[in-house]
């Protein structure tokens, strides 16, 4: 059974990033794959999410976030399925070895489609970071993109599912519906 865990989901949810958990679990349900949502946070779960958080939460949880560094560093080194979003991604940029160094400019709030050459992602970003919207190593991902990003970025979702060993396909009717909606979502956005 696939274990999924999210760090303090009620607090690390500034831009509804816990929707990524809904997306992943629904995708597994639709594909007939069993899973369990593990709480309290299990740093060794098969998939780990640390969502974007309010400034106050980042300050309050600084120590806990620092205590996660060894396990996150291990996940990054091994490319294990992990998703860091927004302010948390930004927090770890200066800390985890292998993540790019933070470079900041004026805040840009907009829809973006970004790519690292092989994998593209789509979502809304509201960040001062320059050119660091997507980091991928193996299935370890960091992004400025909200959305939730897994709902709008089939490449990232496929990467997670593959790395979790999921081979079952989506029912065709569901796949077509989601693809259709996503196509129109991109068209309606500035990036469309």
């Amino acid at each position: 059974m696939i274990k999924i865990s999210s760090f303090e989901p009620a607090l690390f949810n500034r831009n509804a990033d816990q929707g990524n958990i809904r997306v992943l679990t629904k995708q597994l349900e639709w594909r007939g794959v069993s899973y369990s949502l593990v709480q309290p946070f299990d740093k060794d779960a098969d998939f780990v999410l640390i969502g974007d958080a309010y400034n106050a939460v980042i300050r309050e949880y600084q120590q806990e976030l620092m205590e996660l560094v060894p396990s996150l560093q291990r996940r990054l080194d091994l490319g294990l399925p992990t998703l860091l979003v927004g302010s948390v991604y930004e927090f770890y940029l200066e800390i985890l070895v292998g993540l790019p160094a933070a470079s900041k400019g004026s805040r840009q709030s907009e829809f973006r489609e970004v790519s690292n050459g092989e994998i593209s992602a789509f979502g809304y970003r509201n960040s001062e970071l320059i050119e660091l919207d997507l980091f991928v190593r193996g299935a370890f991902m960091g992004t400025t993109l909200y959305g939730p990003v897994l709902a709008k970025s089939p490449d990232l979702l496929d990467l997670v599912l593959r790395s979790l060993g999921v081979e079952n396909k989506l029912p065709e009717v569901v796949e077509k519906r989601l693809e259709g909606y996503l196509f129109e979502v991109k068209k309606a956005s500035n990036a469309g």
Partner: protein
Amino acid sequence: MVLGKTARFLLRRIRRGGGSALPGTIALKIQPKLLTRAIASAPMGLIVVSGSAGKSTTTKVIVELLRANGLEVFTNPSTANIRQGLYAAVLQFGNLRGKIKADIVVLELDEGHGAALISELRPRLAVLTNVLPDQLDRFVDPEYVQQKLERIALASDQVIINADDPNLLTLASKREVTGFGLGRGFEGEHPEYAINFQKPDSIQKTTEVLRTEGISAEIASTKGSYFVKLPSAGTHQALNIAAAICAVEKTCDMSVELVEDTLEKLPPVFARDEKVTIAGREVRLMLVQNPTSFNLNLENIAGDEVPLMLMAGSDIHDPSWLWGVDFSKLKRVDIVGGLNAYDLALVLSYHEVEIGEVIQNPADAADKFLTLSGESPTILFSADAMRRTRRHLGLAK
């Protein structure tokens, strides 16, 4: 004034219900002091209402109570609460010299625009409703909203705060404030405010919501107990009324009975939760502006309304927050509409809600909605979708 009034007249000829932002922008360019001069012509000065939610209701109630007490009140209509909207309101109601006929001015202020404007306005009283995680694409984080409200508070002669909201309670250490909120023994839904780990000392509340039942509430103040009718059910509405009563008690002498009578006759606030007759059918209209109001409105419907239309308009710049809404009580949505309809449809799909049709154009969506049969036609829409739909259906005011 003449140029602005002309622009407003022409725009309204072209588009019914439209014509607020552009004339206001023109007036702002030509006469930047138009607003402050208009306010200065009101002898009792200015009351401002700001915060993440509840601004419209609180403003409307303050205005109606003051009017019932015999005062001439100038206010900004509906959601024209940004700088251009405020200027447009002066154009609409001011004379050709920019003077307004009013004893007092009561303005609903957008948090961001209000903070930028406040040093020019110098209110006699600021009413601050709450800090919620709202419009994050604009404000990024609630603590920036808190900072903006603090600027409003520090620029005002007197301040009324929601003393249950720790984000506002911190103001008590920086200046004298008056508090409203829920009574100690209040049983019922407690609103959730933006997270704040500080534990500011509580203050004595001068106006307290003691209990609510449906659309009735008992609110106690130093003056006595008010048994009032709410614009719609919910603790948040009772808090809005408490804020308004607190503001009115600080402004004039008004009897408890007159407050109660006035609230009894108050119509629902513009489309917050309103029943209108369209093509001979009663349609329920509910405005959703953030996850909190969306979730609250969903709590206030049965979930099996037919036909049901949800609309996410162009005012939602970043639709991410739609994923923070719990749609699980819905089984089917007949029409999903608005510019962000497909984002909403995507979220609904992940909640396994059946969708009848997705129609981005609000007018087309409204037309289709009216062709559907059903006993409980209901529309939940964001502000932009609301304006477009109302205009199309001839409901614009």
